[in-house]
């Protein structure tokens, strides 16, 4: 196929087997840019996100192209393509819609009402085209989608001219008067939603003199057939009316409802689902020892270090953490000092109560001769392993000579631990009599498992301080990546203060953001200056060079105080692939990498993108940041400001009770209460009233108490 001299698209002759196929494919090609096709739910969601508040989506599931259905949809797209976003799918993976059996192979069409959606978090309502996909049906359906839910009129039904009347759709008339107008509108709207795409709802103002409908009726309808008459009736319930129009498809409807709720039987929690998929495997704790009420105390008392996972089987997060815990146990198999154990709090509830376990899962470390320590870090294999290994080192590590300080900082002392900890901290005091000593001891305990903390209390500490231009008491912080040692003077006021000071000093000035360390930096509540780097080895167009340059440039800048109001950091999309989704959410697509983005998470929620065409160096970055501050830059995106509401609609038992057993769930009226009390009073003899006289023969009437039958049961 050609457009001018440009070859637009070619297709094989096997795809154009008849006139439908040809029309469909031609239109498909013409509308190539307007009609999107999706394969996954995620793609559909992206489109939804993009059009919410702006346009509606017409989603067609076409398992095969080239069929009449394809043509019908493409023809509709030709007419309505500018108005609605058309999306095609082969089906199968769009569980979100849920109404149709995902295995159902047929063609389907839905209208997703995204235009009226105001907040990103709200889902787009959808209406299903319940008729076969013919051009006329699709056209009628889309027309009906455009008509307001409810039209209002002040004329008699026979005079009503609405879109429905020429669209071969049934018309439903509801009569209202001024007093009940507000309520009637609600009813009409409810009906409108229920019957959308099938029936046009018209609300008639009865107060008008033009309305000649007898007052005993409050509703009427007219079927689309030629010359059909208006039938009047009394509206009692919404269901009744809905059924009226669907009588012939009642069977179908019921299935629909079932399927609707069947969607709720799909697990929608990623942790639950991933754990559930392993349900065929009996929970195996591997090398982790299962403790009981009988063995718990002994186990934690007798082992040097016992790390205990408290869990419950019905908590998916617990079971996910158990997986990591097992991996830790495998890794530590040869380390005799450490015992990994778990307690099932569903069974050994007494152990968990006595240990005051108030959250599942909880990981707690028990030491011989020390107070148990509840782990508060990331619940993953590496973090746990690091925590356990670092905890094995003394806290603090007492250093007795300058050589020891040196080897501790360089990682020669506590070698295994040192390889796990990117940082080492040495507290410098002039003597062990120093008042800072207990504070350092306390801090070391508090930071146990987080970093290695050495303590050097000696006259030689003075020399170390002098060498680093600080005054005692001080700390030296060693950082692995660049092997730098930085020294800081301290104001020792309390252990808590010391702990938080050390934690702050342990933060990197230009960290690589990872899934595990992001919370540390978000805590600073500053705008993030994020440099997104492409995966390694992705060296197209000499990007490798750019990236290193950009990173080093920013690193230099980060070490100055010019970026103090930001958190400058970088994300490696190879190691942290989740960063890709972040970038996509910020900018709508993945820009050229490396990309520098300012995300004002804590303030304003605006996202700015450093122009990718500009050279990235200290000056350009600083200028750009200034422009942003002066509001001279246009935000490239927004941080989503949405509430995380319930993930799916709620299965409302109350309304189901009301429907199926009216009155069952209703509060009693005061009168009924009185009866109830009466019943209670006589509940002694419920059998009494059941007895019926039956054996009166031979007994003088007056002598026989009728209420006194000896009936056998």
């Amino acid at each position, binding site marked *: 196929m050609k457009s001018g001299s440009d070859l637009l698209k070619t297709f094989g002759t096997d795809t154009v087997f008849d006139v439908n196929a040809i029309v469909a494919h031609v239109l498909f090609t013409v509308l190539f840019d307007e009609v999107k096709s999706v394969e996954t739910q995620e793609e559909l969601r992206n489109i939804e996100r993009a059009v919410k508040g702006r346009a509606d989506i017409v989603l067609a599931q076409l398992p095969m192209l080239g069929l009449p259905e394809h043509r019908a949809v493409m023809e509709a797209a030709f007419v309505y393509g500018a108005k609605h976003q058309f999306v095609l799918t082969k089906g199968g993976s769009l569980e979100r819609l849920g109404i149709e059996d995902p295995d159902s192979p047929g063609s389907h069409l839905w209208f997703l009402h995204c235009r009226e959606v105001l907040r990103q978090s709200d889902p787009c309502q959808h209406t299903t085209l319940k008729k076969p996909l013919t051009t006329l049906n699709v056209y009628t359906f889309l027309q009906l989608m455009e008509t307001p839910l409810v039209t209002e009129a002040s004329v008699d039904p026979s005079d009503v001219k609405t879109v429905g009347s020429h669209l071969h759709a049934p018309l439903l008339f509801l009569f209202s008067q001024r007093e009940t107008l507000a309520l009637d509108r609600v009813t009409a709207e409810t009906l409108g939603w229920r019957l959308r795409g099938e029936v046009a709802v018209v609300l008639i103002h009865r107060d008008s003199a033009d309305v000649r409908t007898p007052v005993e009726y409050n509703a009427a309808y007219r079927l689309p057939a030629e010359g059909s008459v208006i039938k009047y009736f009394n509206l009692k319930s919404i269901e009744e009316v809905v059924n009226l129009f669907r009588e012939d498809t009642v069977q179908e409807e019921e299935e629909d409802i079932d399927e609707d709720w069947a969607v709720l039987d799909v697990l929608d929690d990623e942790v639950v689902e*991933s754990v559930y998929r392993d349900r065929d495997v009996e929970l195996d704790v591997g090398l982790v020892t299962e403790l009981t009420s009988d063995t718990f105390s002994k186990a934690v008392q007798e082992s040097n270090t016992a790390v205990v996972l408290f869990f419950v089987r019905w908590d998916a997060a617990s079971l996910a953490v158990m997986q990591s815990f097992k991996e830790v146990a495998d890794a530590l198999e040869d380390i005799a000092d450490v015992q990994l154990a778990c307690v099932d709090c*569903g069974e050994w509830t007494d152990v968990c109560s006595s240990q005051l376990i108030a959250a599942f899962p909880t990981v707690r470390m028990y030491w011989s001769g020390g107070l148990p320590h509840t782990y508060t870090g990331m619940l993953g294999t590496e973090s746990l392993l690091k925590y356990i290994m670092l905890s094995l080192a003394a806290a603090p590590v007492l250093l007795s000579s300058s050589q020891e300080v040196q080897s501790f900082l360089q990682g020669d002392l506590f070698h295994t631990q040192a390889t796990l900890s990117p940082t080492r901290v040495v507290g410098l005091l002039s003597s062990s009599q120093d008042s800072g000593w207990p504070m350092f001891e306390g801090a070391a305990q508090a930071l146990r498992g987080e970093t290695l903390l050495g303590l050097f209390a000696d006259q030689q500490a003075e020399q170390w301080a002098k060498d680093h231009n600080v005054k005692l008491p001080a700390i030296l912080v060693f950082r692995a990546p660049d092997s730098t040692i930085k020294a800081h003077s301290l104001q020792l006021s309390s252990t808590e203060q010391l702990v938080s000071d050390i934690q702050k000093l342990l933060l990197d000035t230009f960290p690589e953001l990872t899934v595990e360390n992001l919370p540390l930096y978000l805590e600073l509540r500053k705008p993030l200056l994020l440099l997104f780097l492409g995966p390694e080895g992705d060296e197209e167009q000499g990007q490798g060079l750019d990236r290193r340059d950009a990173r080093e440039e920013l690193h230099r800048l980060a070490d100055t105080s010019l970026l103090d109001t930001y958190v400058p950091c970088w994300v490696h999309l190879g190691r942290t692939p989740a960063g890709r989704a972040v970038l996509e959410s910020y900018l709508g697509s993945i820009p050229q990498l490396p990309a520098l983005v300012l995300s004002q998470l804590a303030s304003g929620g605006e996202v700015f993108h450093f122009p990718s065409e500009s050279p990235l160096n200290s000056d350009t970055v600083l200028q750009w940041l200034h422009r942003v501050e002066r509001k001279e830059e246009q935000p490239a995106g927004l941080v989503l400001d949405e509430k995380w509401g319930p993930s799916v609609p709620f299965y409302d038992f109350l309304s189901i009770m009301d429907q199926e057993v009216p009155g069952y769930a209703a509060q009693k009226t005061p009168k009924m209460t009185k009866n109830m009390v009466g019943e209670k009073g006589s509940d002694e003899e419920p059998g009494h009233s059941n007895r019926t006289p039956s054996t009166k023969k031979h007994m003088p009437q007056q002598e026989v108490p009728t209420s006194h039958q000896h009936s056998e049961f």
Partner: protein
Amino acid sequence: MPPSFLPLLTLLAGLGHCLPGKDCGTNSTHRHDYCVLGAGPAGLQMGYFLSQTQRDYIILERNSGPGSFFNVYPRHRKLISINKVYTGRRNPEFNLRHDWNSLLSDRPDLLFKRVSTQLYPRADALPRYLSLFAEELGLRIKYGVDIGKIHVSEPAFHGGHGYRLTDQNGLEYTCGILLVCTGLWVPQEVNFFGSELVEGYESIPVDPEEYRGQAVLILGKGNSAFETAQSILGRASRIHLYSPSPVRLAWQTHYVGDLRAVNNELLDTYQLKSLDGLVEGGLEEIAIVRYDSEERNKSSRRKKHGSVEMKGRGQLYLTLDELLDNQNKTLAFSPMTLPGYHNDNFSLRQPYDRVIRCLGFRFNFSIFEGAASLLHSGMARGRLPAVTAWYEGKGTPGLFVLGTASHSRDYRSSAGGFIHGFRYTIRAVHWILEQRYHNRAWPTTKLQTTQLLSWLLRRVNEASGPYQMFGVLGDIVLLRGSHFEYLEEFPLQALAQFSTLSGHRVTKSGMLVLVMQYGLNRTDTLGSGRAESEWTWAWRSNFLHPVLYYYSTIPTEQEMKHRPAGWPLPRPKAIHHMIEDFLTEWDGPMSHIQPLRRFLEHCLQTDLRAFYAESCFRFSLTYREPPIFCRLGYLKKQGVIGNRKLWQHAREAGLMPTHHDSGTPKEDMSFQNYITKAAASVASGMNFHL
């Protein structure tokens, strides 16, 4: 240092007995903040809780040991309260669901199974267990004190009046709070003509041989009637049970006070037409007449050998009051006065050797005098005192009725009249006392909202209180945004007074109530369709199942009163039934947990799903506020990392986005390698350098 701290604590405990406005030290033996009347299971249970909070209390008991009722009753010495020692579980809380005899205490070894391992233990085991309980916990009991009179006394205790108790020796006890745990022991009698000819359950011989060949009419169709019938089934010739209402079977009604299958052999012999039978009829309208020997001789004169044949045969006839000559009932017997004369197939036309009354027991109202008088409840034919939803006598402030006598609150519906039920109501009353008189609020557990789901599941799967006291005691969850407070086993009927009774407020986030309930639509107990399995049908569950009620404000007294018929609570804002479970294990991710989570999400208007750290990472960077699971976990550095396999599952399910460029180097390394190679590369597993 600990050594100096301990004595101080003990001292404080000693002082704890002296409440403001009380005269401590002097005469303390006869003056107590709390008097517990009766050392049965209820009295000891209350005593335990009072001793736990170190209150000034005394238990007064007229007999020489605890639980003396059980020295006599049940007459045939078999307890029908389940003592299931082998549950297959070691969860002590769960096991209390199947242990109907133990009292609550903090001693894991102070359970009934110590004295008996029989499923239906001998009655002697109970007093033995109670003695053990009282002794090992050092409860303060005064035996041999028979309180004959109870009056209201003047001295104020926290604003209210107190009670003055007088014993058989005229000694007086003054009490701030009176806890009546006297049980039910006065045999219930019915007056009709000839009722003096009737023997009582309390005094019948228990040796079956005494009934050899005899025809026996038992008045009553409860457990004592059937227990009696069962014991003589092999000796008596004919046993008929007579009472107004048909037998109610516990396994049909779920009420343990109804006829238990353990005693129901007579139902077999009746239905298999093996001489025994059940008959319904009013008790007030009958009369028992003796066919005395003189008359018998007279009437049998015609058939000479008749007297020999009839030796040992029946002499007592059941007839109707109306058939007797009202003017002169002493001339009782004549064939005309017997219903069989008028109706030749009258069921009970044959005479009986014995008529036995097994009508249960009533509360002894007689010792309460003046303003201390207790009103009769409308329930149970007035056999029980009327009490409020928090078990205080109606009209007697500061006087609480506990134990079996408090059963009017849930008569014929729950377990409040039995040890396995009232041990929990007593604990609830104790917390109410602590709040009202000592300003100690009902204990709560404060937890993060992310823990709500698993905490509810924990209770649903192990809690014994709401399980035994279904429909009566329920757990309350006070929603507070990102955290909640969990309060256990509150008396539901007192919900309107929740704040006053518990000392806790309900905020605008509202509250949840967790109740265990049987179904309301009684289907055929053993028929098909007796149980539901689809969670969307959970509200039609028939067996005991958890139900959650969500209220945005505490229901009012009016709302409580007008609650839907058969409901324990008024119509809530939202309700959730958890589908009944054959194994009573409510931990299915699909059927139990997810529907519950979605209900909670609706009540809290927040997404309660769990997310892996990676998802939290994404949400934390792209949303102003990530979901609560990420906020309370991941952002506090406690994210759930998961592993490759789990992520893979989540990705396959479409719940986590797939990364197109996967294969991160760190995942490829096994952790053995990780450890051993750690030295070689500083950060093989960590991400701190490129």
